[in-house]
């Protein structure tokens, strides 16, 4: 897929970059080429390797293999310092600003000009004002960054990057938390920077934005190049075709299951995060229901409310027909609800404890002997049974979770809950950070659980996961359920239309 460099060497040329994390091959021989004054979009599904590639370019992580050429000359980028010295700046999804400091102090953070041993305040004010003007940010350099909107904070980040003479700006999902007006303003700034000779690598899930901005699009899939699109080839269908490339059905066979009785019924539920909106829906036992939507649509918050992490302000929850009060995970678990959270390592598992200890953690209370003594044989039983049922690949049950791959860690989370025989299983991004092979195993396990009568409600940001798995999908947008799609109505377009709230917002094509 690599187009050999033309007559002039490209500004940035990435050749055969590979990177492996424990259990996951994140990148395998990826190529990328960026010209001066070019906006290159890098697209691909979650886990396609975009962020890893950008972290390598920004010196956050070293590659395992491959080379990086700048102006045709090979360079080593071993630290973020190296990247900055070479003129490469990464603007993270989450901004890296000291919100307690002024705009000027942030722009010059870490390389403050000194006069007589003290920070030269007047110089950093003057200089930063110049860069703020370049990004069209009309605020006084003394303003505290914490007092700015997210969109404006982002402009401060860009100004900071310009102040170190960055030639290449990498932006990772810059619009994910911006309003429409802020997004528009960002685009004006990006185009202006391009005209000044700055090159931009733009990472986004929003294909409408990609189409509007890009001079060139590079598509990644499963850590490899999936294709390139020139300016005039960029359209929605072409991008989706390259991104998805393959149907879920290639490695996962969906079965039709009979729907059972109502397992979960939610009525007029209001969560603390989106108190304005009421959520009502139900899931039958044996049913697999997806919750689709963009990042920040309130899906995780909804699951956390159902699981009692952030108890509901109002509304009712019924499990198997009886109304229950859920004010903590303890009461949720007692009612037969389980949650496999999105942040597996932080919330789902105690990663420095063993496989056995994690599998039994939720069941200890139920299985205790008198006076709180551990039932060792019962614990052993659960551990053996779940390692087998979930097909956890581990040398033994005393292996510390930290050393398992992401897929096997997720299987341990599922096993922990299966041991509780839940009626309702909530899954938040069940296959995030898991490689393709293990993904299909997770899908199969979900399918098996549903078949055994568990009601499954899963949040997913991966379109193919929503389209391929779901018997039905709820689509959320900014805290509301904007629609419900049956199996027959499910399509990328129908989901996207509801996910973006305003029809056509992301489907400009």
């Amino acid at each position, binding site marked *: 897929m690599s187009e050999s460099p033309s007559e002039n060497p490209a500004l940035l040329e990435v050749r055969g970059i590979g990177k492996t994390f424990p259990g996951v091959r994140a990148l395998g021989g990826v190529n990328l080429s960026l010209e001066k004054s070019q906006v290159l979009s890098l697209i691909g599904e979650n886990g396609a390797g975009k962020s890893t590639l950008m972290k390598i370019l920004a010196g956050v992580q070293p590659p395992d293999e491959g080379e990086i050429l700048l102006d045709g000359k090979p360079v080593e980028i071993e630290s973020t310092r190296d990247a900055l010295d070479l003129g490469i700046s990464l603007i993270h999804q989450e901004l890296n600003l000291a919100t307690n400091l002024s705009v000027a102090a942030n722009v010059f953070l870490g390389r403050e000009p000194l006069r007589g041993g003290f920070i030269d305040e007047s110089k950093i004010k003057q200089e930063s004002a110049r860069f703020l003007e370049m990004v069209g940010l009309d605020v006084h350099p003394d303003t505290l960054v914490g007092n700015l909107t997210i969109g404006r904070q982002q402009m401060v980040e860009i100004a900071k990057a310009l102040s170190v003479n960055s030639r290449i700006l990498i932006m990772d999902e810059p619009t994910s938390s911006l309003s429409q007006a802020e997004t528009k303003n960002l685009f004006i700034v990006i185009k202006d920077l391009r005209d000044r000779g700055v090159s931009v690598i733009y990472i986004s899930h929003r294909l409408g934005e990609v189409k509007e901005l890009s001079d060139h699009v590079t598509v990644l899939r499963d850590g490899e190049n999936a294709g390139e699109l020139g300016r005039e080839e960029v359209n929605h269908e072409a991008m989706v075709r390259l991104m998805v490339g393959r149907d879920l059905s290639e490695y996962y066979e969906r079965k039709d299951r009979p729907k059972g009785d109502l397992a979960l019924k939610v009525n007029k539920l209001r969560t603390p995060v989106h108190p304005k909106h009421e959520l009502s829906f139900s899931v039958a036992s044996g049913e697999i229901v997806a919750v689709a939507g963009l990042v920040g649509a309130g899906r995780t918050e909804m699951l956390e409310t159902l699981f009692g992490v952030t108890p509901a302000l109002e509304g009712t929850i019924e499990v198997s027909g009886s109304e229950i009060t859920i004010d*903590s*995970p303890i009461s949720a678990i007692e009612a037969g609800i389980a949650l496999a959270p999105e942040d597996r390592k932080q919330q789902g598992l105690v990663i420095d404890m063993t496989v056995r200890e994690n599998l039994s953690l939720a069941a200890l209370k139920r299985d205790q002997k008198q006076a709180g003594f551990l039932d060792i044989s019962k614990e052993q039983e659960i551990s053996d049974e779940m390692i087998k049922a979930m097909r956890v690949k581990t040398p033994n049950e005393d292996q510390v979770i930290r*050393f398992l791959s992401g897929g096997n860690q997720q299987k341990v989370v599922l096993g922990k809950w299966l041991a509780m025989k839940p009626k309702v299983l909530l899954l938040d991004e069940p296959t995030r950070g898991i490689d393709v092979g293990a993904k299909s195993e997770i899908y199969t396990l979900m399918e098996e659980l549903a078949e055994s009568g568990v009601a499954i409600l899963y949040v997913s940001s991966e379109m193919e996961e929503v389209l391929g798995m779901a018997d039905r999908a709820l689509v959320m947008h900014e805290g509301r359920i904007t629609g419900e799609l049956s199996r027959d109505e499910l399509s990328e377009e129908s989901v996207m239309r509801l996910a973006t709230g305003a029809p056509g917002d992301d489907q400009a094509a």
Partner: protein
Amino acid sequence: MKKILGILSLLVFVFVATSFLSDVFLDSYNLENLLRRTALFGIISIGVAFVIITGGIDLSIGSVVCLVGCALPWMLTEQGVSVPVALAVIIAFSLAVGFIHGILITKVKLQPFVVTLCGLLLYRGITRGFTGDQSQGFGTDYKGLRELATGEVPIFGFDLPMPCIFLLVVAVLAGIFLNKTIYGRYLLALGNNEEAARFSGINVDRMVILAYVICALCSGLGGLLFVLDVNSAQPVDFGNFYELYAIAAAVLGGCSLRGGVGTIIGVVIGTALMQVLRNMIVLVDWIPTHIEYAIIGAVILAGVVADELLKKAVARRQASQS
């Protein structure tokens, strides 16, 4: 077991070295005294180990020891309180201290360091207040009661100091609690990752409160035995720095201040090592006694550095295997 092998060999090494460097170290009087000190400090170290396992800290131990140590003779000799009532008051006070610490940390969400630092100041100040800053003691009375700390139990021809029996009971109970009950498992889990523990349906707050209650109870028991042992207590310095000895012993014994890691046997060995070291500094002529803190500080530092390096090496090996 592997985890305590390092500290155990260090204990043996210091013990053997001191027996060569000092003529009186192996005298039965000295050994008995050493055992008694180890037992007394062992009890408060086991207490703080529970708090450290949750990822917290208790700086108030020395002041609780001081309050209990002064209040007991004060109640008995000056207020004419009967022994059972005095003991009941001390137990109730210790329970209350631990409970209040726990509530402030879990429900009001204050940092353990801050809460127990205030405790450190409060309990000592209160003690100096109600005693009028006067030394409190039993004089020649309460010999029977004092036997609890000063007495000896003949075992296999050796007179085992009474506090060792207390330590043995506390250590066995603590070991069973930590390793054989679901609550011990909960403490280890939440010390490792509080959020994951909460997401697994564990009542995290209740367990943390329990840890502080256990710690305060051990401090109370320690204070009781300490004052029975030495007969009198000065409000101004009784129990001074004891929290630091306890924390140091727990850390030497393999507890991580990050939480989630620790064994009772390790803590007892850590305490023994501290006391043998202190004994060595006193007995060996050419070690100036006044640099005691420097030596103990250096040994602890060396111990935890070695432990950390060892852990990293093990982690690397395991990572490369899987």
